[in-house]
C-alpha cells in the first residue's frame, strides 16, 4: 500500500478528474462554475496531499517514478498554478458562449501528466507523463473552437508537438538500445562506464531536443509566440506557468540524474541553448505589438536564465532551478492575469500593447501591479525576480562558468529594454480609451497576492525558499 500512498496526489487528480468529467458531461453549461471550483479544490487537495509519503517515499513502482522532495517542490508550484489558470478562466468562455466545464477537467489531466513528468525516473514514465500533459494542452490551445486563431494555435502546437515527441522517442529508443535500460539510474551507470558511445550521445541530444521543445528553448521555440498569441488568454497563462515548470524540472532530473556522468556533454548544449534563448527572447521581443506575443518571448528569455542555473549542475544548480521557477511562476501568472483584465468597455479582450497607454492614469492599481511584474521579469532589484536571477548566476559561477555568466547577464540589459517599453506605454504616454470594469474579486486578489510575493517583501522568503530548494535538490542525488 505504501507505494499507493506515495502517489496520492496523482491518484486524487486522476480519479477526481474522471469524476469531474462525468459531472461536466451531465451538468452541461450550467455546471461549469461548479466544475471549476471543484477542480480548484481537487488541485488544492492534491497540493495538501504532498505532505508525508509523496515527498519522502523515494523510488516506487520498480523505479518508474520517484516520490521525492524534488518532485514535490515542483508539484507544490504546479498545482496551485493550475488552479490559478482555472480561476483565470472564470466567465471568460461564457462570454462567447463556449462550454467551460471541460476546460477545468483538461487542466486537471494536464496537471496529472505534469505530476508524472517531474516524478519520472524512467524514460517510459517520462514519455507517458509528457504525452498526457501535451494531449491535454493541444486541446486547450484550440479551446475556442469558433476562433480561427485559437484553432490555428492548436493545430500548430499539435503538429510541432508530435514532431517533438517523435524526436524524443527516437532519443529514448537510442538510449535504451545502447544502454539496455530505461531506468535513470541504469542510464547513469552506463554513462559512468567511460566515454559514452556515439549512439548514447545521439540519444542524449535527441532526448534533450525533445524536452527543449516542451520547455520552448531556442532553437525549438518556434511554436511559442504563435501558440501563446492564438490560445485563449487563460490557456496562455497556464502554458507559461505550470507546464514550463514541469518541462524544466524534467530536464533537470534527466540531466542531473540520468546524464550526470555526461555533464560535459550536455553542458555545452545547455550553454548554447541558454544564451540563444536569452538573446533571441530579448531581441525578438523588440518589434512585438501584441502583449501576449511579447510575454511569449519573455518566457523564452526567462527559460534561458533557468538553464544558466541548470548548466551550473550539482545540488547548487538544481536548487537554483527550483528557486527560479518558484519565483518565475507568480511573476508570469500575475502578468497574464493583468493581460486578462485588459478589456474594452464591452468586455471584449484587448491584446495590443498600445491599448495599455496611459494606464497609470486610468487604472493606477492595475498599472502598478503590471509594472511590478515587468520590472521583476526584467530582473531589476528590488523586486524578487532579481534575486532569482542572482541565484542562477551564483550556481553558474560556482561551477566556474565565468564567460558564460557574463554573457548571460548582458542579456538582461538587452531584455530590459522591452520590459521598459511596457512601463513607458503605461506611465509616460497619454491615456487612450479606458478599460471596462472587470468584476472578478478573486482574480484581483490573486494579482495583488502575486505582486506582493514578488515585491521586496518577498525577500523575507529567501531563507525559507533557499532551505527548501536545497533540500529538494539534495533529495534527487
Amino acid at each position: 500500500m505504501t507505494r499507493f500512498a506515495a502517489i496520492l496526489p496523482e491518484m486524487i487528480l486522476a480519479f477526481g478528474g474522471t469524476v469531474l468529467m462525468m459531472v461536466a458531461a451531465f451538468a452541461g453549461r450550467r455546471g461549469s462554475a461548479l466544475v471549476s471550483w471543484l477542480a480548484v479544490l481537487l488541485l488544492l487537495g492534491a497540493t495538501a496531499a504532498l505532505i508525508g509519503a509523496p515527498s519522502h517515499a523515494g523510488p516506487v513502482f520498480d523505479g518508474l517514478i520517484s516520490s521525492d522532495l524534488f518532485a514535490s517542490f515542483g508539484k507544490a508550484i504546479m498545482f496551485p498554478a493550475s488552479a490559478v489558470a482555472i480561476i483565470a478562466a472564470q466567465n471568460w468562455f461564457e462570454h462567447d458562449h463556449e462550454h467551460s466545464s471541460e476546460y477545468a477537467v483538461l487542466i486537471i489531466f494536464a496537471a496529472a501528466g505534469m505530476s508524472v513528468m517531474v516524478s519520472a525516473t524512467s524514460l517510459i514514465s517520462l514519455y507517458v507523463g509528457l504525452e498526457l500533459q501535451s494531449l491535454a494542452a493541444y486541446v486547450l490551445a484550440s479551446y475556442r473552437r469558433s476562433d480561427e486563431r485559437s484553432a490555428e494555435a492548436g493545430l500548430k502546437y499539435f503538429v510541432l508537438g508530435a514532431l517533438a515527441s517523435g524526436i524524443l522517442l527516437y532519443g529514448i529508443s537510442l538510449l535504451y538500445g545502447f544502454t539496455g535500460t530505461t531506468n535513470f539510474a541504469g542510464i547513469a551507470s552506463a554513462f559512468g562506464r567511460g566515454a559514452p558511445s556515439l549512439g548514447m550521445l545521439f540519444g542524449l541530444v535527441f532526448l534533450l531536443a525533445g524536452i527543449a521543445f516542451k520547455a520552448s528553448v531556442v532553437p525549438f521555440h518556434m511554436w511559442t509566440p504563435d501558440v501563446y498569441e492564438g490560445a485563449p488568454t487563460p490557456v496562455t497563462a497556464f502554458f507559461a506557468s505550470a507546464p514550463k515548470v514541469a518541462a524544466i524540472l524534467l530536464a533537470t532530473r534527466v540531466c542531473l540524474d540520468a546524464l550526470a556522468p555526461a555533464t560535459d556533454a550536455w553542458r555545452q548544449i545547455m550553454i548554447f541553448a541558454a544564451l540563444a534563448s536569452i538573446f533571441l527572447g530579448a531581441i525578438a521581443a523588440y518589434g512585438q505589438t501584441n502583449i501576449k506575443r511579447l510575454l511569449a518571448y519573455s518566457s523564452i528569455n526567462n527559460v534561458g536564465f533557468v538553464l544558466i542555473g541548470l548548466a551550473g549542475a550539482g545540488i547548487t544548480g538544481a536548487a537554483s532551478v527550483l528557486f527560479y521557477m518558484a519565483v518565475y511562476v507568480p511573476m508570469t501568472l500575475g502578468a497574464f492575469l493583468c493581460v486578462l483584465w485588459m478589456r474594452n468597455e464591452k468586455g471584449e479582450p484587448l491584446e495590443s500593447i498600445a491599448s495599455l497607454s496611459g494606464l497609470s492614469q486610468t487604472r493606477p492599481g492595475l498599472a502598478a501591479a503590471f509594472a511590478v511584474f515587468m520590472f521583476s521579469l526584467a530582473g531589476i532589484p528590488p523586486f524578487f525576480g532579481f534575486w532569482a536571477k542572482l541565484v542562477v548566476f551564483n550556481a553558474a559561477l560556482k561551477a566556474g562558468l565565468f564567460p558564460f555568466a557574463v554573457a548571460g547577464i548582458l542579456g538582461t540589459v538587452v531584455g530590459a529594454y522591452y520590459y521598459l517599453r511596457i512601463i513607458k506605454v503605461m506611465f509616460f504616454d497619454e491615456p487612450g480609451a479606458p478599460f471596462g470594469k472587470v468584476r472578478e474579486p478573486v482574480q484581483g486578489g490573486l494579482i495583488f497576492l502575486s505582486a506582493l510575493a514578488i515585491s521586496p517583501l518577498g525577500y523575507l522568503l529567501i531563507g525559507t525558499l533557499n532551505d527548501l530548494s536545497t533540500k529538494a535538490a539534495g533529495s534527487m542525488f
Partner: protein
Amino acid sequence: MVGQPVTGLPLLTILIALPLLAGALCLFVNANVARWIALVVTLLDLALGIYLWVQFDPNGAQWQFQEYQALGGGIGWALGIDGIALVLIQLTLFLMPICIGASWRSIEKRVPEYMAAFLLMEALMLGVFAAQDLFLFYVFFEAGLIPMYLIIGIWGGAERIKASYKFFLYTLLGSVLMLIAMIYMAQTADTTSIPRLMAFNFPVEAQKWLWLAFFASFAVKMPMWPVHTWLPDAHVQAPTAGSVILAGVLLKMGGYGFIRFSIPMFPDASATFVPFVFILSGVAVVYTSLVALVQNDMKKLIAYSSVAHMAFVTFGLFALNRQGIEGAMMVMLGHGLVSGALFLCVGVVYDRLHTREIARYGGLSDNMPGYALLFMVFTMASVGLPGTSNFVGEFLSLVGTYHASTWAAIVATTGIILGAAYMLLLYWRIAFGTQRNADAAAMPDLSMREWWLLAPIAFAVFWMGIYPESFLKPMRNDIGRLLVRVEHVAPKGDSLPTAGKPALTVIDAKEGHE
C-alpha cells in the same frame, strides 16, 4: 555575520523607512496634502540626520549605528555607517527638502506620484550609503534606477523618453557586470559583509577582473569620459528637482563606490589601474570643459561641468594618498551642493520663461538682483574661489594628484582655468550685458520660497569653504584606515618633494658661531 545585534533605536532603519512609508501614503492623498507630507517628512528625516551627525563619534569605532537582521540565503539587512557614509547621508538629507520645495509649484500634474517617487528615491539613496551587505547595497544601488526612470520619463522635457531609456539602460549595463563580480566575491570570501570584504585579500590576478567589473558600474554612474553621454540627456530632460538629485547625490554613488569597494577591496588592482584612471580623468577634464564652453543650453552646460568636476574626484581618489582622497570627498560634497544649486538657479528662470536657452536671457542683474547675487555665489563656488566649498576640495585633490603624478596635476589644473572660463561666460551672458528680451527683463526677482531654497545652500557652501574641518573630521580616521589598505601599493610619484634648505638668517648664523 556582521557587527553587533540591533542595540537601542535602529536609527538608520528609521531614516530609510520614514520616507518609504510617507511615499506610500502620498499615493492615496491629493496633490496639496502630498506636497506637505513630502516636505514634513524630508525635514523630519533631516532632523534625524542631524541627530545622527551629533551622535556620531569621529574618534570611535569605524562602523557605528550598526544593525543586523539575517534574511537567509546570503543576504542580510545589515546597516551601519562610517564617516564617509555619514557625510554623504547628510548631503542627501540636506538636498531632499530643497528638491521638494523646488517642485512645489513647477510640478502640476500627478503630484502625489511625483512626491512618492522622490521619497522612494530618498530612501534608496540613504540605503546605498548605509548598506553593509554586498547584495543589499546592490539592491539599493540598482533600485534607484526605477524612481529616477519614472521621474525623467513622466515629468521630464520634450525628449524625456529617449533620455529615460538611455539613463536606465546605460547604468544597468554597467551594474550587471558588478553583480557578477559581487557573486564571485561572496563565494571566494564566503561573506557578504562589506566591512569584512574590505579586509579580505583577494588574489591579485582576480582583483584586476573584479576591479574592472566594479569600474564598469561606478564609471558610468560617476560618470567618467567616455561613458558620460547619458548624463547631459538625463540632466536636460529631467525636471529641476530631478537634476538636483542626479547631480547632487546619484553621481556621488560612483565616487562612494570607488572609495568603499574598489580601493579597499582591490588595492593592488587599483594601483595598477592608476594611469588608466588618470588618462580618462584627464581627457574628461579638458574635453568636457571645452564642450561645456560651447553649449547654448544652460542645463547642458552645467551637466558637462559636472563631468569635468567629477574628474577631480577620480584624480584625487586614485592618487591614493590622504590629500587626494580627502579632496575627492570634499569635491563630492561641494559639487553636490553647488551643482544642485546651479540647477535650481536654472529652474528659477525656467519656471518664469520656460526656456533654457542662454541667449534668451541677459542683464538679469537689473531686474533680479537677489537672483544675480546668489547665482554669482554659486558660480564662484563652482569655479573654485577660495572661501567656497569647491576650493577646498579641488585644492586638496590637486595637491594629492601632484604627489602621484605631476603631469596629471598639470592637466587637471587646466580644468580649473577652463572651468572658470565657461562658468564666468555663463554668468556674464545671463546676468550682465544688455537686456535683449522684454519678457526676460520683466521677470520678477526671487520669491520667498526660492530664497528659502537657495540661501541654505549658499550658507553650506561658505561653511564648507571657511571651516571644512566640520566635514573632514568624521572622515579623517576612515580615510586613514583606507590608506593603510593601499599604502603598500600607493604610487611613488614623480614630484619627489624634498625639504628645502632655508637660507641662514642672522640669528642662525650667530648660533652657528657659538
